[in-house]
């Protein structure tokens, strides 16, 4: 529950502590932290440089290892709600399969003698899907709701990361409190983002595509329709990334100024997301992180068929990928906070 925004009890640094209550973990204030972060690389009187913002973001991500582990645990917990039933359903048919070793990627002599090679057999996979059809369809539905929960949790985590910018090593309590305090407004930003994406999709994939698709499909070359689709997909991806930058800039604005209006924050986010610095920051942080995560894919093949070590290795890679994704998010939010222009905090 949020505390009442009572001028008598609230200071620019946050609400006054209850004298009788145990002392909460220090929640870093917004303005000083942002200023402190900016001071490291900002030219006097001007906006901070990209490098400085990037360094600030990376420092923030590095100092947020405790929250990152918490976030990772939550992601794992959410995923297990879907994956645990799946594990139960697959164990009997796959583990007791006559060629389970080959399916696990480590065929033995008997497997090879009968033509079973390493890897999942397409016929076995198809039959498994049919046999466990109910499980798979139920889990796909559960997947939807888990993703919705992940989205809601993301609003909380964004508040936590933004609310602890500039505090060095972030403590879990501070992260949780900061996340909880700004959860409502940040969730509203998320909803506004979803609506904006919905409109973008309708505009690009329905209105635009609906207007030209028939002409494209009647063009002499099949490539016309192919490339038409690719262009629209490209616009969707760029639009999505830009909207995401808008939303994150809005979140930074909300948290650092203490405002609560999601729409006004979005308007501020739009203005900020036009800045090439923010684009560059998002591209650098997001691009490098995504490239690294994709790179883990081929690495995971090294573990195929290596038994327990392989399973642990694959698990570690996946958790590493999730950690990387969230660390990049913490870095991006930290960098955006550093780029936030100084403004008077809301009384």
């Amino acid at each position, binding site marked *: 529950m949020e505390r009442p925004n009572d001028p008598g009890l609230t200071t620019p640094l946050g609400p006054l502590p209850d004298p009788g209550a145990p002392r909460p973990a220090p929640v870093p204030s917004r303005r000083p932290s942002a200023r402190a972060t900016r001071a490291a690389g900002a030219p006097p009187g001007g906006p901070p440089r990209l490098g400085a913002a990037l360094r600030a973001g990376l420092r923030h991500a590095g100092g947020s290892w405790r929250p990152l582990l918490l976030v990772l645990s939550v*992601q794992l917990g*959410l*995923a297990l709600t879907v*994956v645990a039933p*799946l*594990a139960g359903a*697959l*164990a009997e048919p796959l*583990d007791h*399969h*006559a060629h*389970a*070793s080959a399916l*696990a990627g480590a065929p033995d002599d008997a497997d090879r003698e009968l033509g079973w090679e390493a*890897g999942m*057999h397409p*016929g076995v*996979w*198809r*039959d*498994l899907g*049919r046999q466990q059809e109910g499980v798979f369809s139920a*889990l*796909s*539905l559960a997947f*939807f709701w*888990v*993703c919705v929960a*992940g*989205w809601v949790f*993301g609003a909380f*985590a964004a508040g936590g990361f933004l609310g602890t910018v500039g505090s060095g090593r972030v403590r879990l309590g501070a992260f949780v409190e900061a996340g909880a305090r700004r959860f409502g407004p940040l969730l509203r930003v*998320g909803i506004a983002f*979803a609506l904006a*994406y*919905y409109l973008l*999709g*309708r505009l690009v*994939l*329905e209105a635009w595509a609906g207007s*030209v698709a028939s002409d494209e499909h*009647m063009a002499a070359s*099949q490539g016309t329709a192919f490339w038409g689709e690719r262009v629209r*997909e*490209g616009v969707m*991806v760029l639009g999505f990334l830009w909207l995401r930058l808008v939303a994150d800039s809005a979140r930074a604005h909300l948290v650092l100024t203490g405002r609560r209006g999601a729409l006004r924050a979005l308007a501020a986010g739009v203005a900020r997301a036009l800045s090439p610095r923010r684009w560059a920051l998002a591209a650098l942080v997001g691009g490098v992180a995504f490239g690294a995560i*994709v790179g*883990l*894919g081929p690495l*995971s093949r090294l573990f195929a068929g290596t038994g327990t070590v*392989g*399973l642990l290795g694959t698990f570690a*890679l*996946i*958790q590493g*990928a*999730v950690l990387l*994704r*969230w660390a990049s*998010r913490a870095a991006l939010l930290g960098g955006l906070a550093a780029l936030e222009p100084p403004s008077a905090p809301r009384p």
Partner: protein
Amino acid sequence: MTVRRPRHPARAWLLVWAGLALGAQALGGGSAERPAQAEPFGRVPRASADTLAFAIEARLHARTLQVEARGTLRWRNDSPVPVPDVWLHLYLNAFRHRRTTFMTESGAAHRGNAFDERYPGGIDLTSFRQVLPEGAVELVGDLAFERPDDGNPDDETVARLPLREPIAPGQTATFELAWTARLPRVFARTGFGGPAAFFMVAQWFPKPGVWEPAGPEGSWAWTCHQFHGSSEFYADYGTYEVEITVPQAFRGRVGATGVRVPFPDGREERENPDGTVTVRHRAEHVHDFAWVCGEDFVVHTRSFEGGAGTDPAEQERVARVLGLSPADLDLPPVEVHILLQPEHADQLERHWRAAAHALTYMGFWFGPYPYPTLTVVDPDHRGRDAGGMEYPTLITGGTGFLRPRRQTSPEGVIVHEFGHQHFYGLVGTNEFRHAWMDEGLTTYATAKVLDKAYAGWTASRTYAGLPHYAVPVLDFGGIAASGRAALPWLAACLDGPLDLPFGELGVVRDLAGGLGVRHPPARCSLWLGFGEVTPLAFLREVPPLTHLPLRPSTAAEHERGTYAGAPVRDPIAGPKAWEYMDRRSYGVNSYARTSASLRVLEGLVGEETALRMLRRYAERHRFGHPRPEDFLAAINEQAAREGLGDLGWWFEAFFERAWPYDFGVRSIETRPVPRVASDPADGPAPIESIVTVERPGEVRMPLTVLVRFADGSARWLRWERDDTLASLAPAAAGGRAQAEPLPEAEARFLRMNVPVRGEQARWIRLRFVAPHPVTVAEVDPFGHFPIDRDRLNDGRRREPVRAASLGVVLRALGQVELSTSFYGGL
């Protein structure tokens, strides 16, 4: 029906004479006898006993989407009875309206393409004259439409014309015809595509039916089926000579059945004063004629040199199997014309190699392709429903833009349609009555070529038009796209009542017009009308890390996927094409189950013997019209030669019954055998293992059972159709070695005293007492019977290998975690 006089009487008479000359030449050799009995292999008939000769002049009017044609037909009565009438296929009439038999059966849709009523098809026979000594007599006024299959009064795809004078046995009759074929927007492989830029001209002329024995009493009748939603062909062999006139835009871009015949001045094309271009094609020993032209075709011609084709090793192997010398299997040269769309230029080599592989392997296996040309058509994408079709010496493929190599497309369709040159073209079965005899055998042959020449089909997902060769463990299309399934009540609310007439709003029209958009979407629902944006799905799930790569699938496994999940409702053989429960049942039985049943034959008798059986059938009935009993007779004859006994039970079980095939290992139980006082004190106690094998399916089969013990030793057994057990030689023989009956005492011990039940029961329990326990039990370990409904139960391991499922589960974990992380950032 209106009767029109020919516009150019002089040219008409020339045509008659050309037809007479052609007919005399073509029918002159018609009395050549087919080999009564094909003792050795390799004596493949090179020519058919042609029944008809047809000379046609055809002119394409691209603007009116019509082909105006006339021709001279000569037809010989090979029967011992007089023929009182002529029955003709008028198949373009299937596309006249929605009440024809074709439309009724197909739901006016074909392969997902809806019939475009604005552009119906049709054929108007304007003249049909019987040439008699006293002069030609017009018969078209007596034309009557027949509906022999379903009595549908709205169907006009079969016409009967009573003759003024019956055709006596051995007599050749001559007819002069004129007709106009109106082409639909490409539908069911026929019509025009784009703004009159592509024409697939098939089923376009009045094609005689087949005059053949009709009953046990020696009566004869026309077999002339209506055009149905499934199946297309049954006609007699003949010679066609066709002059095709097209607008200048199609110059050099015409493909047709048969060989291009030069004009007397040596030129291959004749330019006409009206700006059109004429080409001539001649085809002998074929039972249909089709042609195609497209403004955008890029025509490539390659020579298939023949000889050993592309695989001398396979030639030697097949020669050994058939008892011939490799030179006996030398293939004749073939000129291959590939009519490719310009945007598919990068796939020229793939088209060529697919055609060459098919010519090679099917030539070795089933006899050489006897025609000098093969035309491979890549249809215009605006007429893609013209793809995937066979006509004599002309096949249509079909491909896409940037098609991934590991999915054997267009290769699969090219090989399949070429396969029909053997099983439909050379072995001219009645597709309506026995669809499996051409589609099934072709599917089988296709799979064998693909397995031989390609690495296999690999499952993939497409992102931004590019494939990633792995599949997600959980099928999830993202929050936006999955919302419809997760929130059906909300979707239903937003879908219907709030559906907005978006494109009808003036402001939308004005705005769209201002932006240069001519067709704003007509309606607009509040619910998302768009699916997943695939590049964003890639960002979300990171497929290289979280998706499950599958091994390449063999063609057999790939085709098994088309039927394994569906219950068997119809037998393969028996129902006519329109008598299956639905089109899926028709497709599953005619294509995949037939192919799988032939693989079962391979599994039973061995690949080489199966090859000899099918070769026997293909040779004996080349240019003939065999029926299922002829097929079985050829199989049984070869089986008898090789001492394999009657395979009628196989045909009955797999073709004549709607029986599923499934065997499995139900359980493995082990326990130490209790010691008794008389046992020696040292050494471990022996272990008793009990393996239960079950038969959930209906089919009874001689089944190989492999049992492995913990020390690595193995026991191979065969559970026979009569419920007895036999001992098999181990794996070196591939599980097909002759089985030896087990001594009675051993058999009784193995069976745990359950008596032999006469015919294979639903289960059998096997007891093994050995120093080591059974670790794995498996049925059909070599997968000789890929028709199996369920591969998961084919074997069982006593001790689990956890990594098998955990490997999959970890991928799913990554998929979900990265997805929640992705959404967490929004």
